């Protein structure tokens, strides 16, 4: 617990891309059930702009997708 309004915890490893509920408990028995979710997502590229790039290496690509953290 960092202050009265926040808690820090480390996300465990998870074997597959999935979005899960995240709940908090102080007694290992009673958990919150507020529908807060966390997604385990590897970077996934959905689109790239531009698709044509300069031979000079001056183009900067913007990559759109998921899981860019």
């Amino acid at each position: 617990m960092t202050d009265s309004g926040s808690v820090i915890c480390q996300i465990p490893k998870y074997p597959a891309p999935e979005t899960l509920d995240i709940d908090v408990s102080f007694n290992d028995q009673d958990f919150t059930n507020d529908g807060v979710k966390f997604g385990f997502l590897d970077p996934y590229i959905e689109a790239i702009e531009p698709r044509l790039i300069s031979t000079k290496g001056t183009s900067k690509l913007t990559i759109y997708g998921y899981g860019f953290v």
Partner: protein
Amino acid sequence: MEESKSVIILKHKDQPLDCNGAVCTKVYTVKSENEATVDTFEQSIVLRSSKNIGFDSFNINMMNPDGDFSKNDIDIRYYRDPALANVSSHFAYANEEKPIMISTNFFWGAGNTLAEIQKYSDFKCRFTSANDPTKVKVTKAVMETSPIGQFKKDKLPDQVRCRTPKWDSTDAATLEFSINGQDFLGNFAFNFVDNLEVYKISPLSGPIGGKTMVKLYGNGYTSSVP
């Protein structure tokens, strides 16, 4: 939220891609959970099977926390800079949006293919004030075959057409062109001259047979047209 993270790899979809003997990697910058940016390499250092990548398509993969690469089939490729020969006009009235044609060699079949340029290009013209470099206006452009309207089956586009933006003053500027909407080339001198306007006509009417001499009152008739 903006943070540099992990590595990005440029990888040919069929064969390993090398940059001077090493895998081409770049650090990407995260803009948000759904957006990242990354710089590219000069074409001259990107190899495939010990040969320059040239204008072959390739993919970009991002390294995930497990060290694997996210896969996708989004092809990107280098384009060959077109050669811009000349511009149809070097001036426009500041209050008009004038069509400008730029004679262009796209090097069809020698670096660029029509299908890919049609599909992936984002043609733009950019006008930059010579007196105030922060004053920049970008307009859409299209490629076409000259002369306009005379479609010839086997003739490929050989010019670019864009419109001048409205400019709020007389000004000297430069005109540049971009194939991908980001990298501009060409450096044509361009002038925005006095607005051309009509305030009043006298007389207001005349016989249907014509031949009435009228006087037009307005602005820009002694414009500094180069």
